[in-house]
């Protein structure tokens, strides 16, 4: 029941927001209220969740298409509950940001955002292959319009590449869903057995690799992250990318243990390549959005290494890193948006020297940056360390690459920090550009505080994401 409520609340909210003819501010306020209610509901669900039990919890199951064995069946494991928590927080911040900047066509905008939230939660909760496919695809509908209508100048090109890439992946997944479901006689993830068909696995793997994105399926990423409204880019990089991780964890690995094992070297190598290549691109990107976009790709490579390490350290690290990266990346994107609003650009060359006279901005950017570059003691450091330790089981080479990735992350993050705050004032930075307003602080600070909390106690997530029961269901 709790899971269904978490899915339905934003969907109903979307409908209400779309239908009620309220003025712009009230519409946005209502949407924000729904997003906050979603957080409250999640906290309540968290209270009822028994982390010692490794099985599926808070679930519901109802027949949908009996003759094919398709059911509406949802529920949470520890790791998916944490992913949903990050989702609720990031969406609340994104919707708050949209309210702060006053997006036009407010009813359509916020209805689509809430619809997206519902679709993402449904993806993380799906325990039926078809329901997973449905929610995975349904995310694309609002994203297409959100980028295409409210995006930047080259938004149409961005939507076209984004949709072509993701749909090519999704349709391969549909073929795999059909093949897997028909051979198993059921689409339920809890009831179906395993398959050793490499082709079916590849259909899923490519869909997830595009969504994440993993090297070399990242062709859509630069345009989409640059041309989206900044809070949509935040949601894309922080949350939507994590549905791919959930897909690997819930479907790719448990349902295809042999193909996943056989291809793990290939995937690990690609993930390592993505980690290094993404980090280098982030270091070379001429604009802040580019830096964060490519760093997000690098981080997804890192998390994938953790997933395909196939041991509990790597998996725990992958989930901790997913949650931490979601919050860091969303904070960074929103901060970039705030800088863009002041300077009209995110070109590194045109910025600089904003620290002087803007103490809040300086502090917040510095803290977010420190966490992003995984300073020892931060939640991201804990995540990356666990992934590194986990990857060691598969081969020491992977750990070396992860370590290299951490160094590169420090390089590009420091570049962002100094590009915004230090050096001499850039040409786009006007003297009268304001410090962060209280409203803006209220959007970013909660996420940073959660990150600081996780830095103090990373075990909260990493120890509870997978317990013995879950692991035996997931690990091949």
């Amino acid at each position: 029941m709790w899971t269904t409520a978490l899915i339905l609340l934003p969907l109903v909210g979307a409908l209400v927001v779309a239908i009620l003819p309220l003025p712009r501010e009230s519409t946005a306020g209502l949407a924000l209220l729904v997003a906050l209610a979603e957080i409250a509901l999640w906290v309540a669900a968290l209270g009822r969740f028994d982390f010692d039990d490794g099985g599926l919890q808070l679930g519901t199951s109802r027949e949908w298409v009996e003759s094919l064995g398709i059911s509406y069946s949802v529920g949470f494991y520890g790791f998916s509950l944490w992913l949903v928590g990050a989702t609720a927080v990031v969406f609340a911040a994104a919707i708050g940001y949209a309210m702060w900047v006053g997006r036009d066509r407010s009813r359509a905008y916020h209805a689509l955002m809430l619809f997206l939230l519902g679709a993402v939660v449904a993806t993380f909760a799906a325990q039926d292959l078809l329901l997973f496919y449905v929610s995975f695809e349904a995310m694309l509908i609002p994203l297409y319009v959100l980028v295409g209508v409210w995006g930047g100048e080259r938004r149409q090109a961005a939507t076209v590449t984004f949709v072509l890439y993701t749909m090519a992946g999704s349709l391969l997944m549909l073929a795999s869903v059909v093949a897997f479901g028909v051979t198993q006689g059921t689409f339920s993830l809890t009831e179906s057995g395993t398959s050793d068909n490499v082709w079916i696995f590849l259909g899923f793997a490519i869909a997830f690799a595009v969504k994440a994105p993993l090297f070399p399926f990242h062709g859509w990423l630069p345009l989409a992250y640059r041309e989206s409204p900044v809070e949509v880019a935040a949601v894309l990089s922080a949350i939507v990318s994590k549905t791919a991780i959930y897909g690997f964890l819930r479907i790719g690995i448990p349902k295809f243990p042999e193909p996943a094992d056989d291809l793990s070297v290939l995937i690990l190598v690609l993930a390592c390549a993505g980690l290094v290549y993404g980090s280098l691109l982030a270091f070379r990107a001429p604009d802040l959005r580019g830096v964060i976009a490519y760093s997000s790709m690098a981080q997804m490579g890192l998390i994938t290494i953790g997933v395909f390490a196939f041991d509990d350290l790597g998996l725990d690290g992958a989930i901790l890193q997913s949650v931490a990266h979601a919050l860091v990346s969303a904070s960074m994107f929103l901060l970039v948006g705030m800088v863009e609003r002041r300077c009209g650009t995110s070109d590194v060359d045109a910025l600089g020297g904003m620290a002087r006279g803007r103490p809040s901005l300086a502090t917040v950017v510095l803290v977010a940056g420190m966490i992003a570059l995984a300073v020892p003691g931060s939640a991201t450091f804990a995540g990356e360390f666990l992934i590194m330790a986990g990857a060691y089981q598969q081969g020491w080479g992977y750990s070396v690459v992860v370590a290299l990735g951490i160094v590169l992350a420090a390089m590009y993050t420091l570049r962002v920090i100094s590009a915004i705050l230090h050096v001499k004032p850039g040409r786009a930075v006007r003297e009268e550009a304001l410090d962060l307003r209280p409203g803006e602080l209220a959007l970013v600070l909660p996420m940073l505080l959660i990150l600081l909390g996780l830095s103090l106690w990373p075990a909260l997530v990493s120890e509870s994401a997978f317990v013995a029961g879950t692991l035996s269901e997931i690990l091949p």
Partner: protein
Amino acid sequence: MIDTPTVDWLALSPTIALLAAAGVALLSALLPAWMRKSVAAVAALVGFVVAAVLAGVLFDESSTSEVLLEGTMVRDQLAAMAQLILGVTGAAVVLASWGEQRRENHAEYYALLATAGAGMVFFVGAEDLMTLFLGLEWFSLCLYILVAIDSERETSLEAGLKYLIVGGFGSAVLLFGSALVYGATSELSFPAIGAADPSSDSFFYAGLAMILAGLAFKVSAAPFHMWTPDVYQGSPTSVTAFMAAATKTAALVVTLRVLVTAFPEQTDVWTIAVAVLAAISLVWGNLGALAQSDVKRLLAYSSISHAGFMLMAIAASSERGGEALLYYLVPYCAMSVGAFAVIAARERELQAPVTLDSLAGMGWERPYHGIALWIFMLGMAGFPLTGGMFGKLFVFSAAYDAGDWWLVLLGVAATAVSLGYYLNVVRRLYMSSGAELRLAPAGGSPPRDPALSVAIGAAVVVTVGSFFVVQPILDAASDAAASLPF
């Protein structure tokens, strides 16, 4: 005394209801001009609704199939379900036609629409080669006139002529094929043809091929689709809607029935032929649609590609395939009628053919029509939250089950290509501003058209509803498919 066959009036009742409605509609030509249109339209609407209700009763009461009229017709759940779909589709088309700005010919229009409906309802129950041809010509003749009914528009006349010539050719091919099959087996009724064993007779196979080709003309499957874009574009839009939904439904259901009941021994031959037709339709329809700027033409090519998907289900030659076909038809008909209804509304507003350019900004200016068209496009592309997704899923599962995995991959690729033009429509609706519109709108708010809005609303409900309520439709579809001897 001459022996008269016993007549099962209930089985014929949908046909009779529609013929009666056609009669009333035609007689309304005698009424004063101001009430002609409403009387004719209401008569046709009532006819279609009654036919649909009777078909529903028939579906309920025909759990075993029975032949009637000396074996020329059959009463079974397959026919009843097709009749139900046809009746509801026809009713929606009547509603969408209501606001058509036509000066005269109202009585004739609705009478022909109801007669065409009667012909289709008759056609889907055909059980021998005579009734097959009779039904086909019956509704085709009505459609030839309907396509050309706006005789003041040259494109309408041109479309009518094209459809007449190509459709006449298609019928001739079907008739020739029937003659060959009769020659080889000396049988007219489908089960009797199926029981005969003329496998060594090459004329028999030629006849099978020609019957299939004749039906493919009506299905507008490539390579027998040449008439489709021109005729869909030139016809009055409500007639296009009727052809896209109803003609396809009737022709596909009959194709399934003929192949399964009359040619069970030749399954390995015709499954390949149908699979090839499906493949060509998928490729041609989708690639053709990419290049279109006129929306009706675009939807014509899209209907060719949908014919390809549905032929995939027939090519599976299994109960699962039949089930998939019948399920697919439900959202497909709703989406087609709905999409053409939105186009009709836009056409009436702009007083000009609707191109992609003239959809610019429509999503924001006419939110109801915009959202509806958005849903129909997503549905045709097989997105979730519409029945189109389950349609594709069932068709793919049936094809995969039958071992046609290459067809599944082709279908997936075709779906990917189809996003190019379906999402292009959405892009015009929402991401281009109305200021880019090259044609000046007629001005002010659009003419109110509550009947059309009802039709669009019903189409949206069916499109989305068939996603959530799958099992009942699927049960009906599997009962219907079970009436064929797979």
